[in-house]
C-alpha cells in the first residue's frame, strides 16, 4: 500500500480542519465565556447626549409603563440624581461638575440594565427567573419569581427595581433591551427615540470596533476606555465618555470578574462538606465511643482486680485464722492430755476419791 501525495495532503487538510474545529469548540465553551457570538448591544456616547429625555419617553411608551408624574418634556427632573425604578426602566442624569475644561456644558449619563454577559442577577436567582438570551438581552420571568430580591442585592449596577406597593403579585422591573422588539427586528424603544445618535445599536463586536475607531479618531474627545468591555466580565451595553467615568456617576471599582466567579468557590465547597463531614463526624464518634469502651474495660478490669485482691487477702486471713485456731486446739488438747496424764499419776495415792469430778470436767474442756 502506497501513500500518494494527494492522499497525504488530504489527511493533512483533515487534521488542520480538526484542529480548527477543536479551537472553535473551545472558544465557545463556558470556561472562557465572552458572550454569545453575534449577540447585540448598544453603545452610549455621552459626548453626543443632550439630555432631552426622549429615550425615557420612548422606553415608557414601548414598554407600556405607567405615565410619569411629570411630563418627559420637563427637564427640571435632571436636577435630581435619579435611579431606575419599577416605573422607569431607564433614566438620564446630568453631571455639571466635570474636570475637563474643554468639555462645553454638562454631561449626561443614561442608566438602564447593562445586560451583563454573565449577569449577577441570573447567577443569584434561586428559581432561574433571569435568562441571558442568545441575542444578548437579560430577561425576567415573573411567573416563577418568589420576590426575594436577591437579584437587587447582587446587581453591581443597582438596576433591578421592585413593586413594593403590590401586595399580591409584586414583580422585579428592569430593562429587557426590548427583547420582544429586537427578536422582531425592531430597535429598542430608547434607541429609536434618540434624536442625536448618542445610542448606537448593533452587534457587540461591531460596537467595540466602532468605539475604538471613535477613540482613535478623536483622542482628545474621549477617555481611552470603553466602559462595559470588561467591567464585571463585560456587558452588552458599552459606554464612551468625555471625562473619567467616575465623574459621570459610573463606578470604576467594579473590577473585571464576572459575578458567577465570585460565588463559584463557595459553591464548590458544598459537595466537599457533604462528602467529607459525615466521614469526619463518624470518625470522631468512633473515637469517642472507643475511648468510652476502653475506659469501661479498664474500669471493669480494675474492679475485678480489686475484688480478686480483696478475695485473696480475705482467704489468706481466713487460712491464718484457721491455722491459729488449729494451733490453739492442738495446744489445748496437749494441755488436756498432759493434765490427764498428771491426774492419772495422782490417783495412785487416792483413787476412789473423785470419779464424779472427773466426769464433770471433761465436756467443758471439749467445748473450748
Amino acid at each position: 500500500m502506497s501513500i500518494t501525495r494527494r492522499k497525504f495532503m488530504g489527511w493533512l487538510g483533515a487534521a488542520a480542519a480538526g484542529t480548527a474545529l477543536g479551537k472553535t469548540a473551545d472558544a465557545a465553551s463556558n470556561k472562557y465565556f465572552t458572550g454569545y457570538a453575534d449577540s447585540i448591544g448598544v453603545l452610549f456616547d455621552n459626548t453626543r447626549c443632550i439630555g432631552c429625555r426622549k429615550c425615557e419617553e420612548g422606553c415608557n411608551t414601548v414598554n407600556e409603563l405607567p405615565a410619569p408624574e411629570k411630563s418627559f418634556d420637563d427637564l427640571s427632573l435632571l436636577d435630581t440624581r435619579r435611579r431606575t425604578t419599577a416605573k422607569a426602566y431607564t433614566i438620564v442624569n446630568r453631571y455639571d461638575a466635570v474636570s475637563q475644561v474643554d468639555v462645553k456644558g454638562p454631561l449626561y449619563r443614561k442608566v438602564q440594565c447593562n445586560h451583563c454577559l454573565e449577569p449577577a442577577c441570573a447567577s443569584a436567582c434561586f428559581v432561574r427567573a433571569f435568562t441571558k438570551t442568545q441575542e444578548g438581552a437579560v430577561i425576567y420571568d415573573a411567573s416563577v419569581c418568589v420576590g426575594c430580591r436577591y437579584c437587587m442585592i447582587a446587581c453591581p449596577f443597582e438596576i433591578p427595581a421592585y413593586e413594593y406597593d403590590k401586595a399580591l403579585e409584586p414583580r422585579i422591573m428592569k430593562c429587557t433591551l426590548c427583547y420582544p422588539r429586537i427578536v422582531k427586528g425592531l430597535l429598542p424603544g430608547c434607541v429609536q427615540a434618540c434624536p442625536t445618535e448618542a445610542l448606537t445599536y448593533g452587534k457587540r463586536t461591531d460596537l467595540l470596533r466602532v468605539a475604538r475607531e471613535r477613540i482613535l479618531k478623536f483622542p482628545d474627545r474621549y477617555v481611552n476606555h470603553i466602559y462595559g468591555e470588561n467591567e464585571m466580565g463585560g456587558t452588552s451595553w458599552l459606554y464612551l465618555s468625555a471625562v473619567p467615568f467616575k465623574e459621570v456617576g459610573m463606578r470604576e471599582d467594579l473590577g473585571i470578574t464576572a459575578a458567577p466567579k465570585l460565588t463559584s468557590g463557595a459553591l464548590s465547597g458544598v459537595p466537599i462538606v457533604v462528602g467529607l463531614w459525615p466521614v469526619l463526624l463518624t470518625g470522631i464518634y468512633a473515637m469517642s465511643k472507643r475511648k468510652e469502651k476502653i475506659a469501661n474495660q479498664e474500669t471493669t478490669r480494675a474492679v475485678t482486680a480489686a475484688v480478686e485482691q480483696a478475695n485473696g487477702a480475705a482467704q489468706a486471713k481466713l487460712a491464718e485464722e484457721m491455722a491459729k485456731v488449729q494451733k490453739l486446739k492442738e495446744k489445748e488438747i496437749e494441755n488436756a492430755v498432759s493434765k490427764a496424764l498428771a491426774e492419772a499419776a495422782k490417783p495412785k495415792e487416792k483413787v476412789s476419791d473423785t470419779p464424779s469430778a472427773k466426769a464433770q470436767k471433761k465436756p467443758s474442756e471439749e467445748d473450748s
Partner: protein
Amino acid sequence: MSDGAATTGRSFLTPFNVIAAIIVIIGLIVTALRFTGGLASVTNLSDYNPWGIWIGFDLLVGVALAAGGYVTSAAVYIFGMKKYHSAVRPAILTGFLGYALVVIALNYDVGRPWRLPYPFFIQQGTTSLLFEVAACVALYLTVLFIEFSPAAMEWLGLKRARNLVVKLTLLLTIFGVVLSTLHQSSLGALFLIAPAKLHPLWYSPYLPVFFFVSSIIAGLSMVIFESTLSHRYFAAKMDEAHMKEKDAIALGFGKAASLVLAGYFIIKVIGISEGNNWHLLETNYGLWFLVELLGFVGLPCFLYAVGVRDKNLKLIKWTAVLTVLGIAVNRFNVCLVAFNWHLPSEERYFPHWMEIAISVFLVTLGIIAYRFIVTRMPILYAHPEYEDH
C-alpha cells in the same frame, strides 16, 4: 412569667401575659397591613435597600442564634461529652423554634410567599447561594423537628414511635451538623456576590468561614444564656440532673466559646490582612469594625477565659449575653450597616417601626411557644419512663 399562671390556669392577667397579648395584637394588625398593602405600606425598604431587618435580624441573627441545637447535639452525641446531656433538649427546642420563626419571617419578607417551594419543585437555581440556604434550612428544619419529636411523643405517650426516632439520634445529629455547616456558611456567602456594595473590612472571601465559626460561638453562648433564663423562670420544671449539670454546662460551654472566639478573632485579623485593608481601620467604618472585633469578639473571649478560670458563673452568664449581642452586631453590620456604605446617607436604610414590630412579634411568639412546650413536655427534665435518653 414564673408565677405558673399557665399551668394553674387561675389568673391570666400576669404582666407577661398582658405584654405578650399587646405585642401579639399589634403584630397581627401589622401582618394584616403587610399582606393587604404590600411591603411599601409597612417597611422602609427601597430599590437601593432591598433587604432590611427581616433579613438582617430575623434570618441572619435568627439562624445564628439557633445554632445551639447542632452545637450541643454534636458535643453530646458525636464528641461523647455526656455530662452535657441535659442541655440537648432545650437547645434542640430553641433551634427548632428559631428556624420555624425564620421561615415564618421569610413569609413576610418575600413578595409571593406561597411560591417559597418553587426553588425545589418548579425551577432550581442551583448557581445561587440562596438556593443552598433555602434547601439546607428546609431540610434542617425537618431534622430539628424529628430531633425534637421524642419529647412531644413522650408527652403524648407514643412509646413505639418515640423509641424508633431515638434510634436515629446519631444519624440525625450528623445530618444536622452537615446541613448547619452548609447554611450557616452560605448565609455569609450570600454577600460574596456584592463586593461593590459591602465595605471591604466586612467583605472577605472568608465570609462563609466567618459565619460558620461565629455560629458555633452563638450556639454555645445561647445555650448558656437560655439555661440561665430557664433556671430563673422554669426552675420548678427542672429535674435533679438539670440542676446538677447546669453549672458544668456553663463552665464547659464557656471554655469552648472562649477557645472558638480566639480562633474567630485570629481569622478576622487574617481577613483584614488578606484584603490588605489595614489603612481602612483609621476611617469611621474602621473604628466601628474595631468596636466589633475588640468589644464583641476579643473582650468576650477574655471574659469567658477569666470566668472559667475563676469558676465565676455570673461572669460567664453576662459574657454569654455580650457574645450573643456581638453576633447580632456582626450580622447587622454585614447586612445593613456596612452594606451600601457607598450610598449617600439619604439613600440609606433605617427600619420602619412596623418592621421592628413584626420582629418583636415573632420573637414573642417564639417565647410563648417555648413556654407552652417546657411547661408540658419533658424538656427540662427526663420523663420517668424514658430515663435512657
